């Protein structure tokens, strides 16, 4: 193990994380339908394989073989580019999330995140919000009024909630004293140190969760693809695999947000009451935490009705932004005056 070159380990990590993310997106597409079915006294997909487990596979094959339509007036280059632009940023952001502490295999220490950069949180926010370009471009390039409206709404919404999201992350960064996600995790080794157990952390957590729903265009804030008003929103004109790519992007963004939520507020791979636990157990704890947040995404989607667009804007600018700002102020004051005392 000691003489395995560094790049092999890197490649293995990248393949594992990327494959895992895509697999999660596939499982989420099945889980979404299963969860909705269970909440509505139904069975959900159960024909393909045991309990319908191979449904994502069948969907994938179907999407690949379907005919792809491009509207006559569409900007063909942008139309083809947009889904990739929407999907790639959320796949890139998973790189900085520490899936565990440090794995020790044959005496060799392997950090369990692809990239350990000093400004992980900032990188994540900066790259993560790029995926909105995919939606705007897709909406604009489709040459359809519904798509354009969907894209516009998505951009307005993401800009509004990006602020709250950032300010909530800043709270955690201030509490932990580092932008490095690995350091943020290290500062929450014990359960009592988890950021959720500080008063500022609770408010930041609620703000972050709500803003992450808006960021990923999920219910109750899915105005970008608001079916009753906009047919399909920005992806109205998309078909076949490009349509699927938008959804892979959405599910990947959900996964990253769930991972980030677990990392920032619930100690990431820290196992409750076992601060010195084995790294594999830590990884499992991390996946369980992230999985619970993924379930929350689905749970909320099948419970709450959609907001109205003006309500969304009012909530974002008049309620959540002031709360987030005030929370950051309190956090700063607490660190300056109370933390050392």
């Amino acid at each position, binding site marked *: 193990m000691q003489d395995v070159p560094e790049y092999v380990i890197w490649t293995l990590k990248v393949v594992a994380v990327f494959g895992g993310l895509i697999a999660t997106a596939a499982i989420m597409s099945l889980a979404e339908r299963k969860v909705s*079915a*269970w*909440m*509505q*006294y*139904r*069975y959900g997909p*159960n024909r393909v394989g045991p309990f319908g487990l191979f449904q994502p596979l069948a969907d994938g094959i179907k999407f690949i073989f379907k005919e792809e339509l491009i509207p006559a007036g569409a900007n063909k280059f942008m139309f083809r580019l947009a889904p990739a632009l929407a999907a790639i940023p959320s796949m890139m952001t998973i790189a900085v999330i520490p899936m565990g502490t440090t794995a020790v295999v044959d005496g060799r220490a392997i950090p369990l995140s692809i990239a350990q950069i000093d400004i992980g949180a900032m990188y994540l926010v900066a790259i993560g919000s790029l995926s909105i370009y995919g939606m705007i471009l897709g909406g604009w390039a489709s040459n359809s009024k519904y798509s354009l409206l969907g894209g516009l709404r998505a951009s307005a919404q993401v800009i509004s909630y990006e602020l709250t999201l950032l300010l909530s992350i800043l709270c955690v960064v201030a509490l932990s004293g580092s932008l490095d996600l690995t350091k943020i995790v290290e500062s929450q080794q014990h359960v009592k140190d988890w950021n959720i157990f500080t008063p500022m952390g609770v408010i930041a957590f*609620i703000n972050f969760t709500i803003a992450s729903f808006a960021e990923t265009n999920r219910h109750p804030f899915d105005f970008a693809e608001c079916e009753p008003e906009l047919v399909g929103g920005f992806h109205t004109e998309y078909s076949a695999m490009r349509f699927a790519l938008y959804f892979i992007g959405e599910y990947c963004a959900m996964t990253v947000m769930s991972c980030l939520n677990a990392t920032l507020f619930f100690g990431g791979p820290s196992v409750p009451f076992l601060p010195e636990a084995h790294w594999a157990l830590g990884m499992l704890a991390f996946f369980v935490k992230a999985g619970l947040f993924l379930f929350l995404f689905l*749970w*909320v989607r*099948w*419970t*709450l009705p959609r907001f109205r667009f003006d309500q969304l804007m009012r909530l974002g600018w008049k309620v959540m932004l002031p709360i987030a700002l005030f929370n950051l102020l309190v956090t700063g004051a607490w660190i300056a005056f109370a933390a050392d005392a």
Partner: protein
Amino acid sequence: MVVLQRKELTLAERMYLPEVLRGLSITFSKFFEKPMTRLYPEEPLPTNEVTRGQPRLVVKDDGNIACVSCGMCEIACPAYAITIDGGETDRPIEREPVRFEIDMLRCILCGFCEEACPKDAIFMSDELELAGFSRESLVYGIEQLKRPKSELQKRIDYVYRLNKRWRRAP
């Protein structure tokens, strides 16, 4: 003029978050309940004698059908689904169909043939499923329409009971 009196919302309701949690708890409580959906091909629909399925020819205990090819059902059929060619037989009833076809794609399961039949030869069964690879394969002849009397007994009894109600007292 109707003045709509809107309910004053309490503070908790206006804060929205407690109500969100209440909604989430409601959906979660439904999570583990038994589904109401029927898994159709594995769990067939429940039928009883009132079910008006596809018409079938009753095979009597002696192995023959009761049809005398009178053509009453052919005339009664509103969808022109029934075609009958009559022929002779040595049995006491003297006439029997040489060809009795029901086009199942035309049949609307109305039950008029059952009502029209003077010889209790045709009854509605509880068979509802119909599938085939060609239109021709779904034009059923005598052999495909035959059903033993025991299978249709419940329906026969039901029709007798029903008709008795309509009959005027002597």
